């Protein structure tokens, strides 16, 4: 009996200490501080979707359009142009058909497809391997399907780069401001990045938030269409219903949100 009471008092004492320590620990815990929901909102004209997706019509892409799109995207997001090719940073870029679509093994395909300059970018996968690989949750998937990076959290471990089967991610091996004219961002409204973080396409989350379409879609002269995949009335859905589309490396099960129309022309 005596022994039990002794034990009970010990446990009770320890618990009391624990309870008094909890608020102190909580106050000093490294946590995330969010603004209270009652104090935050979205812009009135923000575009809100359930699953943002993109359809790229390869037949409408030319080298000139691709260059224009890449230039527009990279200047809007202050993507540096670095002299050292090994330090290259890319958000959207041109790729050969056979490199973009490694699963397409047909020997004989139309020249128009074979030699068409394909534009590739982050696929904003439904099952993004980069999100699973990230140890700090710097890369995460939003409810609207966008796979976004929180650069504040990236520790530069590059697990995401190893995990991404599309090479959509670039690492800042040097200060990215080295690759900006006068070290000044072209678009002062958008931040640059710093040495030691990974970066990639953000599906223009900052533009959707103020009611604008992604820049690549806007300047693509109709080659890129962006919309909500879960909205049956959306333009992307009507295109997907009409045209046969393919995605990059579908066998991996990542479920890209970027679809490609190959061939175009009569069958578009």
């Amino acid at each position: 009996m005596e022994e039990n009471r002794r034990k009970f008092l010990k446990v009770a004492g320890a618990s009391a200490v624990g309870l008094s320590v909890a608020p102190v620990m909580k106050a000093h815990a490294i946590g995330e501080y969010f603004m209270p929901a009652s104090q935050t909102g979205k812009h009135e004209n923000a575009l809100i979707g359930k699953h943002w997706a993109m359809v790229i019509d390869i037949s409408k892409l030319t080298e000139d359009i691709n260059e224009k799109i890449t230039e527009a995207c990279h200047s809007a997001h202050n993507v540096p142009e670095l002299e050292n090719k090994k330090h290259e940073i890319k958000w959207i870029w041109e790729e050969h058909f056979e490199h973009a679509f490694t699963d397409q093994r047909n020997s004989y395909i139309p020249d128009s497809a074979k030699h068409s300059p394909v534009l590739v970018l982050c696929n904003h996968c439904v099952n993004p391997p980069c999100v699973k690989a990230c140890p700090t949750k710097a890369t995460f998937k939003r409810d609207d399907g966008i796979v976004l990076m929180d650069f504040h959290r990236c520790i530069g471990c590059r697990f995401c780069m190893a995990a991404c089967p599309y090479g959509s991610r670039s690492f800042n091996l040097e200060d990215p401001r080295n690759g900006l004219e006068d070290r000044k961002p072209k678009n002062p409204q958008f931040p640059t990045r710093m040495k030691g973080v990974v970066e990639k396409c953000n599906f223009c989350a900052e533009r959707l938030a103020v009611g604008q379409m992604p820049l690549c879609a806007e300047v693509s002269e109709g080659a890129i269409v962006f919309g909500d995949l879960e909205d049956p009335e959306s333009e992307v859905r009507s295109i997907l219903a009409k045209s046969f589309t393919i995605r990059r490396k579908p066998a991996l099960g990542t479920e890209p949100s970027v679809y490609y129309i190959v061939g175009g022309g009569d069958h578009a």
Partner: protein
Amino acid sequence: MTNDKPKIIAGLVIFVILVTCPMWINMGKNKPAPKLEMAAEAQAKGYCVLPKADMKEKHMQILDGWRNSVVRSGQRVYVNDQGKRFDMSLSNTCLECHTNKAEFCDKCHVYASVNPYCWDCHVNPKEK
């Protein structure tokens, strides 16, 4: 048992002097806290997202909350107690009025030896 009392006391005195030497060296040298200079744009506006005292005390928590709410929750608008709406953006809202980053931000941060890494990526759009 040997009597090491003098040695121990001498050691303790040396230890205390060494530990407190930054205080002695810097005594009488403390600079007055810098006076903040408000940019003309900020003065013209006449209000901030929160009252001055709150901004002075809590701007770092607010900026932390802003960035988390914007990046991770996709909430980009802050509504203050007066119902005024602000874009939660360091470069595009704060520095829109406080155009003098060098006098307004850096002066105090340098004085207090605080090195926030905001400026590794974010820029002062008004900076020439």
